[in-house]
């Protein structure tokens, strides 16, 4: 009797999985209330929360320069940009919640080091040119990733991406504009721009993650259409798009192996320092500790504020009841 029930359940699950895959294959969006395999849900929560964390941690290196921005116009634009990233974070945390992930817990996982975020934000912003380089390269790389995600299989994630992509491409243009102004400025300004490109280029390429050969989850994510391109494909798209921009700005990409390959119709490029990549992921980047500490501190120091707001709301509620 018991075995029969178990078998029945197993059959049902199998059937549901097949139906699920059929929907995916037909490019029908999965919505929060639809049945989905547990692993699909978990993979998505992981990816979306990582994305949300990246938006929020990513505020820090740029916020560094709000008080030092070189003109009022740049100050206002940078402030607005960092605020956009906060909005992206919020939007993505909400998308995670549609899958039953508690926002508080999700954030605690970031603070405990359990959850990851984009390794790029563990590099320091040393000069003003870094603000240009981040917009140009980091937002630029994010767009390549996210344009593909506009067609991801999970509805709320895809829709979040449509909205976010518009703003990211604005950030990218703004960053590139900062860089070109520097590149066309005084020798000191141009040197600042080149220095920033030298430091941000390789970490930007690392943003797409390990090579396909070292990316074991890619296949399943592709089958579920959570991902629509492999890491290497996306990285290549980014390089192909960016080389020209560097040329136009009159800056040199710090890769002596970078060369147009007529046959492939793509740029060949040098070896990425994967040892550095894995170390930064592991927590050994120049700013990992500093970034997490800043987020943790914001949360700890905000605790009493949140408690006060809740206590006040409680009091108001009981007043209404008493009346």
């Amino acid at each position, binding site marked *: 009797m018991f075995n029969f029930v178990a078998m029945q359940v197993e059959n049902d699950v199998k059937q549901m999985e097949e139906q699920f895959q059929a929907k995916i294959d037909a490019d029908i969006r999965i919505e929060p209330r639809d049945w989905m395999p547990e692993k699909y849900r978990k993979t998505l929560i992981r990816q979306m929360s990582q994305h949300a964390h990246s938006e*929020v941690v990513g*505020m*820090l290196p*740029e*916020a560094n320069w*709000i*008080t*030092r*921005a*070189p*003109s*009022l*116009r*740049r*100050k*206002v634009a940078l*402030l*607005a940009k*960092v*605020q956009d990233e*906060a*909005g992206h*974070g*919020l939007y993505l*945390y909400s998308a995670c919640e549609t899958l039953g992930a508690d926002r508080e817990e999700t954030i605690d996982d970031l603070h405990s080091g359990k959850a990851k975020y984009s390794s790029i934000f563990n590099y320091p912003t040393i000069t*003003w040119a870094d603000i240009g380089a981040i917009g140009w390269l980091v937002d630029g790389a994010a767009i390549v990733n996210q344009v593909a995600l506009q067609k991801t299989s999970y509805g709320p994630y895809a829709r979040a991406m449509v909205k976010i992509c518009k703003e990211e491409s604005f950030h990218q243009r703004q960053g590139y504009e*900062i860089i070109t*102004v520097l590149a066309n*400025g*005084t020798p*000191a*300004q141009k040197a600042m721009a080149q220095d920033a490109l030298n430091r941000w280029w390789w970490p930007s390429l690392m943003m797409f993650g390990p090579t396909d050969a070292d990316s074991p989850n890619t296949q399943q994510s592709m089958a579920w259409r959570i991902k629509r391109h492999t890491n290497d494909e996306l990285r290549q798209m980014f390089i192909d798009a960016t080389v020209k921009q560097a040329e136009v700005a009159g800056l040199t990409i710090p890769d002596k192996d970078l060369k147009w390959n007529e046959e492939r119709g793509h740029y060949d490029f040098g070896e990425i320092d994967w040892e550095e990549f894995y170390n930064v992921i592991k927590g050994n980047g120049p700013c990992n500790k500093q970034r997490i500490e*800043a987020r943790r*501190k*914001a949360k700890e*120091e*905000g*605790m*009493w*504020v*949140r*408690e*006060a*707001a809740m*206590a*006040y709301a409680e*009091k108001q509620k009981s007043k209404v009841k008493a009346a």
Partner: protein
Amino acid sequence: MNKELYEYVLRMGDDSLILGQRLGEWCGHGPILEEDIALTNVALDILGQARILMDYAGKLTNKKEDEVAFLREEWDYKNVLLVEQPNGDFAKTILRQFFFDAFRLPFFKELQNSKDETLSGLALKAVKETTYHLQHSSNWVIRLGDGTDESHQRLKTALEELWMFTGELFYADEVDTKLVNEGIAVDLNKIKPIWDAKVSEVFAQAKLQIPEESWMQKGGRKGKHTEHLGFLLSEMQYMQRAYPGCEW
């Protein structure tokens, strides 16, 4: 050039500039993400006002907006001491904001009638923005004051630190007198009772006592500042000082 007008525009513009700079320090570090965004909204509005005023001060003296904003000496900044006070904790930031917003809203309402078109135009836009700012800061003062013991205590501490800087909001001298007569400036005597009433109203809900009559600091309008401004300026001016004459 109308020397008094320039002075008046600087006073108003520096209040916005310096407070906007302070609020910008919060970005990325707010107590919750939603509040991070809200504080940044306020900062953006206030810096937008600062830009209009720096630009205007520049036009009066044949300078560029950024020259006025970044390339003055400490004694040439004319903001009230209140806005240069460090952020402290969230209670201090919010209370500072509340005192300022409660001043700025009736101030801008009056300024809408200014005969100076740049100023009346600015005021028209700023009234809308400041209405929201005051709502936001009032709500938080009430929440913190009537929230937990800790939040109430923190707000009280902030009040002890900031109260002595509130009197200067109503400082007026020959600059005001002349421009009020010309129909350009706001008569601050009209603003004070409105500010008092707002503070009483919000403090009552926040269960806070208004401090007794006490000594008030002043000096900002004449360029005499607290020690805090120098540090703020060295950060804010760094790029313009290090790379003179560049485009950004």
